[in-house]
């Protein structure tokens, strides 16, 4: 089939995997198979949503991150933090404390990602108002959703809003600003503290962009543990922070990554949908209709959006509640005309530069459903899938090592599996006397690993 399309941040550790298939059963794009007792990823099907990471009972799925020490290769070491990061901590932990620990760890600058919203918000609103040719327009904020649309809903790629997310805008601003301050761009490293795997994949192999302005990615749980340890052990008290106060984030920026964070600022009829199964259900229907009534769709792969990211540490509902409180405080100060809150942040001085570079190129569909590039081959394979389905039980038990009967049928026509992997087919063959019990055990061992069939395997 086709070559490898993109980088995945989720890695499966064969040495740890027990082949329990929990990951296979929760994967919303049927991207996982079990072979030789281990989970295997079908690269082209995976959208980096991270459902498998959460389901794994033994920690065999890891989120690959850049080595933290690589930050020291740069003189200017910028930590780009999303507002979700502060939301991880109890109310008494301040942004200043968090950034103090980041500086302590070795960063020279700390900047909140959602300052990019100050530039993006109106551009996006105008975009939705002026691009009437496609309805509904779909936000490209969540990279897992962009990939989901590419592989599962390719007819909707034309509906994607081709604008960069706040992260890329904030990164472009910060590196430009440092250049203007006389710093060598080769000596500047921009590091994003990420709440999810999809953002890592988006940085490592961006969709619709040549390359990413981000130098490296650090997992949020790593930073959370460092910061919270420092706070708990009292190394960083409220009075010991020596950091200059950061620019305050506007209320819209604080909430941007939460559910309805974008939709709340768009005009017309908008919908905000979070959690990938909800999104799939909605898009399945949307693809059937000519729906011109909805103007803007905000879609997020995680429940409670980024607050539910797989690399977050705090309960997502607490996180959202804290973010709402922070946004309410900011909003009050904005209304009162507080100088630091009511005025635009320094990023808007670069508005023209940032707007000139705000577009991304067309997002290409890459359907995972196609059985073959060639239509007559695809037709043959489709017939074969249909014939195979007649023999399968529609139970979706997963014992064949594929998540559904239909996935097994497709795997068979692609030469990646055998019909005899189906336990129902085996039993039928045993009954007819054409498959000895030993043979069926051998097949099951090839799927689930021989250890599971040893007597006393779990002792």
């Amino acid at each position, binding site marked *: 089939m086709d070559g490898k399309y993109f980088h995945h941040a989720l890695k499966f550790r064969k040495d740890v995997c027990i082949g329990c298939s929990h990951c296979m059963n929760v994967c919303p794009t049927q991207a996982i198979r079990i072979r030789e007792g281990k989970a295997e990823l079908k690269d082209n099907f995976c959208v980096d949503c991270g459902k498998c990471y959460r389901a794994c009972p033994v920690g065999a799925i890891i989120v690959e991150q850049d080595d933290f020490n690589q930050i020291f290769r740069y003189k200017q070491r910028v930590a780009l933090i999303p507002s979700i990061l502060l939301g991880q901590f109890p109310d008494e932990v301040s942004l200043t404390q968090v950034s103090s620990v980041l500086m302590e760890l070795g960063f020279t600058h700390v900047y909140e990602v959602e300052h990019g919203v100050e530039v993006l918000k109106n551009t996006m609103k105008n975009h939705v108002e002026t691009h009437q040719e496609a309805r509904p327009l779909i936000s490209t904020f969540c990279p897992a959703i962009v990939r989901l649309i590419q592989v599962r809903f*390719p*007819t909707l790629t034309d509906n994607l809003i081709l604008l960069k997310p706040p992260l890329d805008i904030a990164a472009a601003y910060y590196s430009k600003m440092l250049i203007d301050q006389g710093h060598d761009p080769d000596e500047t490293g921009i590091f994003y503290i990420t709440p999810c795997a999809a953002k890592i994949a988006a940085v490592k192999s961006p969709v619709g962009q040549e390359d990413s302005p981000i130098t490296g990615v650090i997992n949020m749980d790593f930073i959370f543990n460092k910061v919270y340890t420092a706070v708990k052990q009292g190394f960083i008290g409220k009075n010991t922070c020596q950091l200059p106060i950061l620019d305050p984030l506007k209320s819209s920026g604080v909430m941007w990554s939460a559910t309805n964070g974008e939709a709340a600022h768009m005009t017309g009829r908008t919908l905000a949908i979070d959690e990938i199964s909800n999104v799939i259900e909605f898009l399945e229907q949307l693809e059937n209709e000519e729906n011109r009534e909805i103007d803007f769709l905000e879609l997020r792969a995680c429940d409670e959006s980024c607050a539910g990211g797989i690399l977050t540490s705090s309960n997502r509902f607490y996180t959202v509640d804290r973010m709402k409180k922070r946004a309410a405080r900011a909003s009050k100060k904005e209304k009162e005309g507080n100088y630091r809150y009511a005025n635009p942040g320094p990023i808007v001085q670069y508005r023209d530069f940032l707007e000139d570079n705000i577009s991304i190129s067309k997002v290409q569909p890459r359907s995972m459903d*196609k*059985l073959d590039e060639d239509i007559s081959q*695809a037709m043959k394979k489709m017939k074969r899938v249909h014939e195979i389905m007649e023999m399968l039980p529609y139970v979706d038990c997963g014992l064949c090592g594929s998540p559904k009967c239909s996935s097994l049928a497709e795997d068979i026509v692609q030469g990646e599996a055998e019909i005899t992997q189906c336990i129902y087919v085996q039993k039928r063959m045993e009954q007819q006397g054409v498959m000895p019990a030993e043979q069926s055990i051998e097949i099951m061992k090839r799927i689930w690993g021989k250890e599971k069939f040893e007597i006393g395997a779990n002792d």
Partner: protein
Amino acid sequence: MHFEYQIEGGNFTRAGFASSEIKKKLKQLNVDLGIVKRTVVATYEAEVNVVAHAYSGTIYVDFDEEKVVIRLVDEGPGIPDIEQAMKEGFSTASSTVREMGFGAGMGLPNMKKNADDLQVSSEVGKGTTVQITMHYQNPNNK
């Protein structure tokens, strides 16, 4: 390849099932996405029409290497004046149906707009047959 799907009159919760199945098969065949889109829009519209107006119906789908022919045969009141029904805004849908967001009188015109070929025949008191033909390689792709 031949497939059949049943449609239950008046049950909107199941409307769209056949369209989704046809869509999945067109994607499997690697058909041009613009054509997939038009096929699905036309079929969904036709499916909803059967649900809204008829007592029951069957969708017969035939895929070959060049085209797909989708024939929706229903048992229902039939269409007295097909020419009128082809005009935008004409609707006989009940107010309940309209409240559900269906029956805006765009049904047949919208099918016509999206289909490569649309054939409608009807017998009052018996039922209606709608046939949608879509070519995978349509030189005049709309």
